[in-house]
């Protein structure tokens, strides 16, 4: 009984952590972009204010069952992915559903949410939503290839599909995987540029072009759900990268430092870039990222 209570509390704690960290990072990103553009920018806690405002608003209309379910799908997928990812090494508070979680499961569950969201956006009947969705799915095919190649390279090198095992490998060897297979890291980080959907890959939301795309018919609590799911997702992706390439983290401060540094890569890359066209955003990942993916696999097999 105590075990169950503990794991439920742990799950809630993980969720709160992911929510807070993700939201704060979003705020920092806004600040960074503003400073680069020589504006003062909003305070870094601005996202919390926005979230609170959205949550307290009353939603007046909906477009049907799928529209109501869309944000729920997104949230489910984010939370399930979060429950599976090992947040901290050997910590009783953050063990959660770690059934020796495996990477393939994670790859798929992370696509479940956006697909559900896409269905919700589809029912609204807004053409901008549908255009945004097609762009997002196209882009997903793009970045998934180098991303999978990087993960496959690690899987075959260390004979495991489990995130926990990859973390243990790094502990035993005493060296992070980023140094053991740098090509895989490069491929993964380039793929993560697309995963975060910041400029130049912000073709889904595409401000001023698609009127925020799939989100366009959502307001109030819908938008709050989407926003918090997005923050949790950002945290999940960063934690996964940290777990896989940087040996995980043994305490929260280490985790925050590592994830923050990683987070700055897509942010900094995006802040100086304009937006790609959709086909460019797709084919981008089949150029250098793909090459690094191949190198990663070759490196794993032969070295």
């Amino acid at each position, binding site marked *: 009984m105590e075990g169950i209570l503990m794991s439920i509390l742990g799950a809630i704690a993980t969720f709160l952590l992911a929510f807070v960290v993700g939201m704060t990072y979003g705020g920092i990103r806004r600040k960074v972009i503003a400073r680069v553009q020589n504006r003062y920018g909003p305070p870094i806690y601005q996202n919390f204010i926005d979230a609170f405002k959205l949550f307290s608003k009353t*939603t*007046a*209309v*909906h*477009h049907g069952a*799928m529209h*109501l*379910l869309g944000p*729920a799908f997104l949230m*489910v997928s984010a*939370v*399930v992915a979060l*429950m599976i990812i090992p947040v901290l090494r050997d910590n009783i508070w953050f063990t959660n*559903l770690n*059934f*020796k979680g*495996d990477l*393939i*499961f994670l790859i*798929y569950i992370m*696509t*479940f949410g956006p*697909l559900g969201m896409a*269905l919700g956006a*589809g*029912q*609204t*009947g*807004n*053409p901008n939503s*549908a*255009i945004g*969705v*097609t*762009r997002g*799915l*196209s882009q997903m*095919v793009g970045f*998934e*290839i180098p991303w*999978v*190649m990087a993960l*496959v390279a690690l*899987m*075959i090198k260390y*004979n*495991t*599909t*489990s995130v926990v*095992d990859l973390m243990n490998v790094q502990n035993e060897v005493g060296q992070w995987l980023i140094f053991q297979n740098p090509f895989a890291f490069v491929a993964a980080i380039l793929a993560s540029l697309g995963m975060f959907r910041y400029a130049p890959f912000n073709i889904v939301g595409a401000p001023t072009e698609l009127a925020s795309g799939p989100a366009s*018919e959502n307001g109030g*609590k*819908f938008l709050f759900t989407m926003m918090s799911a997005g923050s949790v997702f950002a945290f999940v992706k960063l934690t996964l990268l940290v777990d896989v390439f940087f040996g995980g983290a043994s305490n929260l401060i280490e985790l925050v430092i590592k994830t923050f540094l990683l987070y700055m890569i897509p942010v900094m890359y995006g802040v100086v870039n304009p937006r790609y*066209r*959709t*086909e460019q955003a797709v*084919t981008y990942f*089949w150029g250098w990222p793909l090459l690094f*993916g191949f190198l990663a*696999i070759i490196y794993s097999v032969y070295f």
Partner: protein
Amino acid sequence: MNIIILILILFFLGAIITAFSGKISALVQDILFLIVLVVPAVLFFTGVDMNTESIITFSQAQLTFGMTPLSYYFSLIVMGLAVLAGFYTVGQMNGKKRKGYYYLNYILSIGAMFGILMSKDFISFFIFWEIMTWASYLIVIYNGKNVQKIGIKYFVMSAIGAYAMLMAIVLIHSITGSFLITDLISEYTGMTQGMQLLIPALLLIGFGVKAALMPLHIWAPDAYSNAPMSYTAIFSGALSKMGIYGMVIVFLSLLSKVPEGALIRDIVAWLAAITAAISTLWAIKQDDAKRLLAYSSIGQLGYIIIGVAIGTPMSIIAGLFLAFMHGVFKSALFMVVGAVEKQTGTTDLTEVTGLIRKMPWTFLAALISIIALAGIPPLGGFVGKWMLYESLILSDHFMLVILVFFSSTAAFLYCYKILFGFFLGQEEKEWAHVKEAPAIMIVPMVILSISSIVLGTYPQLILKPINAAMMSFGLPDTYGNLWKESILFNKWGNQIALAPIMYGIMLVFVIVTIFLFFRNRSRTRYVTTKDISTSGEIIKEHENLTFSRGFFQPFLRAVEPVMKRQIDKYMLSFAKGVEDLFEFTRRIYNGNGQTYAIYAMIFLIILLMFGKNLLG
């Protein structure tokens, strides 16, 4: 009388009676049709076991029937789908013309498939194979549209496959002196190396045609989309699995016994992977739901063939598991398309929009089947995909993994396209009259989609027969080694427990759904899809804002270089070359007596001039 023979007689006699019973009344015909499908299924599941064997002797040849664990597994697919699609057929064919013709061929093809699975010798195997081809051909041309183009394409490819198989059978008989499949298996290792490669290759051509393996797939998109959807559910779900059934026998009992077999296995696996990737891209391009699903079927069969061809225990489990799952979710999807076609009269994804509120049950079936198709946990498709990836990585086929991953990610695109095209988007007045399909069509779809949920949680339901089938081929027992009740293991010591994850996801899902769905629903009011944010512009009733044309245009632009090459074109140019050859031959044999006289003269002159030298 032996029960297998009884079932076969029931099928073939029943087919003829059903065909002519239309003269009495349409209702009698429908009921007879269902009886002919249900009774054999019941007899099969109650009466047939591994020991039933029967031999019919004609003057020289012996036809041997009996069940093996593998054929039991495939019979599950065939019999189950035949009954479910049968009920659906009755609903769909209601009021259509030439029902007798359709029912006759439907039952014949089911009976033939059952015959194939029960055949223990090549003679009956080939006879039933041909009956199946003929029956399905007659259904493909049922609509009477493009018979020349579509029917002949299917028939020519089937004939190529049949001749290849016949050649293999003749070769086998000349070497072993027997038509029994078991004799081939036992004498295979003693054959010469050339025969060891030639016989499986010829058989694989025969099976590859039905399994739509590139480059033998060109008939499939047309044939699948031209047949009535109630039969395409069988076509893609069960009939294509006959090709897989044959391949499993060839790979497991022949090619895995000899070292050279590895080469053919790798070639087939690569062909299948390329098939999967390219046909997925073509599926994305289609605007017609039938053709989209047809291409998607070819792609999914590609995964199955990869699994079977790689030949490690885990990959075979993955292939066979996916074969079952594909039968379940793809036939449900074809049924969905058929229901939409019946209610709206078209399957064009650019025309039909916003049916979700009019056909909610159809949408539900489509949604669940699509999630299973996309391989998203916790549904059944994921279990198969997971095992496939795992086995490919373990057997060092890294590039194949990437190809499979690519095609299964790209599959999301057409999955979304079909859901969006039919059910989502703006609700138009044009489709305001559409009603939900009749219950007799809905129930089979819903049953199929429920089974893809059940199989995702309890894969052991079909992993058990798979395991039995594999053990009959001399493979090690995988129970407790690769899987156990709702738990899958992998070789690296990890395990994925499906039931707890399923319940975990369900729990989170239910909580979030309650929080969002019901709360929001009670507090908000429904507005039509015309009432959307358009930056101040007001949409008129007649304005159609649905985005459905050129749906994935940017993506298709990105992958254009790959799609330039079409196997169809090569085949056509080959056919053109052959035709030119015939044309040349026709010039020689032009049917004119005078010309033949000249040939005779020329021949005589040659004889006279060179005769001495030639005969020397």
